[in-house]
């Protein structure tokens, strides 16, 4: 008998709010700079860790090949191992962050490691999409703004940023201020921690009507 089969739904009287993810409203945290462009999901979580069938515990493997040598020894030069970035919860990186494989494990690994958001000048579509399903924020800023943040994170001790999803802005204590754009519905879901499966199921009538008009092909039934 499989786990959880027939377990009571947590839906109760509010089916749209099934299984809340962690809401993202305003977050302040230490910033770690990853000064590279095109950081692909193979780097964020290498393939040998994709065989696990759980959603948890991926943080220890994040950026594995950069963080650890072939012998498993910690690479002290990798930015996330510098003591001053310990406990960082905001990552700032170069353009096209999260390109490549669709593996959501990349988001699970970053989140499990302690990050709540990544700031970059651009994100790969699937990575950005996966992030929104996990209460994890991708913040798109202009290239020169990202360069400023990377420089400040490298130069200023204990550099921290505030990411305010309510106002769609990023600010620091040194006068940096930038607005960012985000799809209004995605923002709404993140602010409220909404589960979008529940939201889609609010349209049961329309889905049913569509399926009545377009039944599954006979060959597949």
């Amino acid at each position, binding site marked *: 008998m499989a786990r959880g089969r027939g377990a009571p739904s947590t839906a109760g009287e509010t089916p749209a709010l099934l299984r809340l993810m962690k809401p993202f409203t305003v977050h302040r945290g230490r910033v770690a700079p990853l000064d590279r462009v095109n950081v692909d999901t193979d780097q964020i979580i290498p393939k040998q860790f994709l065989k696990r069938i759980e959603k948890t515990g991926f943080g220890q493997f994040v950026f594995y090949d950069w963080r650890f040598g072939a012998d498993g020894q910690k690479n002290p030069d990798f930015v996330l191992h510098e003591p001053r970035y310990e406990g960082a919860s905001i990552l700032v990186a170069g353009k096209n962050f999260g390109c490549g494989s669709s593996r959501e494990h990349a988001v699970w690994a970053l989140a499990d490691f302690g990050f709540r958001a990544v700031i970059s000048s651009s994100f*790969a579509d699937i990575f950005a999409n996966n992030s929104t399903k996990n209460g994890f924020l991708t913040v798109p800023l202009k290239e020169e703004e990202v360069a400023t943040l990377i420089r400040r994170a490298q130069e200023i001790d204990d550099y921290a940023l505030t990411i305010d999803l309510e106002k769609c802005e990023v600010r620091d204590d040194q006068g940096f201020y930038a607005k960012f754009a985000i799809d209004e519905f995605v923002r709404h879901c993140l602010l409220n921690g909404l589960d979008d499966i529940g939201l889609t199921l609010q349209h049961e009538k329309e889905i049913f009507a569509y399926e009545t008009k377009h039944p599954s092909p006979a060959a597949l039934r």
Partner: protein
Amino acid sequence: MTAARTLFEKIWQAHLVAQPAGRSPILYIDLHLVHEVTSPQAFDGLRAAGRKVRQPARTVATVDHNIPTEPRGTPITDLIAAKQIAALQANCKEFGVRLFDMDSAEQGIVHVIGPELGLTQPGMTIVCGDSHTSTHGAFGALAFGIGTSEVEHVLATQCLAQQKPKTMKIDVRGQLPDGVTAKDLALGIIGQIGTDGATGHVIEYAGGAVRALSMEARMTLCNMSIEAGARAGMVAPDETTISYVKGKRFAPRDAEWDKAVAEWRSLPTDSDARFDKVVEIDAAQLCPFVTWGTNPGMVAPVTGRVPEVKGLQENDRRAAELALQYMGLEPGRRIEDIGIDRVFIGSCTNSRIEDLRAAAKVAKGHRVSGNVRAMVVPGSQTVKRAAEQEGLHKIFQEAGFEWRESGCSMCLGMNPDILQPGERCASTSNRNFEGRQGRGGRTHLVSPMMAAAAAIAGHFTDIRNWKFQ
């Protein structure tokens, strides 16, 4: 009068279930392909919420990513991989999902078996928890990769809430020269527009050179769309598409077939439809390409050299320097002087029968270079059988290539087929990211013909000068 629409817009509009105010549109999904790596957590999510698979008939699973390519029946020594395969088997059984399992005569890479079983059809919306789902766009379907949360979403609702992407037309004029394949076209495009050149867009490939491609070549081209950052890649259906689908196991039949074909013929982009972006490519200017760096946009003509990095803008220059350091190369090195240790012919990009025929034609009568280990991994059991009926396996084996069982294999090295640190590989796969084929491994992306030629020469060599036996 209705406004002129693109292929993408026609499919998008036909699949809109609801457009709630202030929310993303909800799109119906015709076909959901599932594999072992990105699905276990999605099935767990269903169980935790007490949900079912809404449309088991529209859900098809196979095992491909982490299975060994040794002869079937050899025990899986990687226990974590075995557990993941067992989880898919149990999930398919529990939720009533059709599974083409390890021992199935139709098992294969999910993007190879979808088309060859006739599951993939024009006009469909197709998703899979894998970025190379873009492959199916070759049929004039809207096909894109999703993460595990969205896999769960589709399992539970057969729908996805999606923001509407933009459209990009890549118009490939003229004719591909001899020795220049769909893989070279894909690499040439990515080299030109960059690995984020199509982010946020669905590409439609058009023009005479695309029309002239076989279905399998169109799959290779669409497969690589994600490497340009595209949400999906598509080719409008035509007679080539229709004759490919006809008679396939899950293709419509009789009256249903006629009805389907009539619909498919209405799909191509209207002549005056507009795209958000248009890129023009002159096919005659293309040549066989080899990647030199650590993303698929870092390409050079086989007759060229590893490029100078000095003139690049700072971020790109640093990326190129890191790539060269990882790849053990220096600017100015002739591509044809780069020696290789391994060759991989396979993956959802280039493991179909035409790919194997092309590689076998090159290999015939030659021997793999003494210091090269070369393997051929057919995309599916069906491809493997077809190749064996044609005697291709004999050509490969006599030339010194290993002939393996079907799976994703060394494209991503989740199974035991991996590069050792420092090994250099000519690979027909889709990604040359650091460590992709094994930690410290150095991947150069090429076409199947170029890979076979490199195996024999021991270094990259221009297929246009090959002495076919």
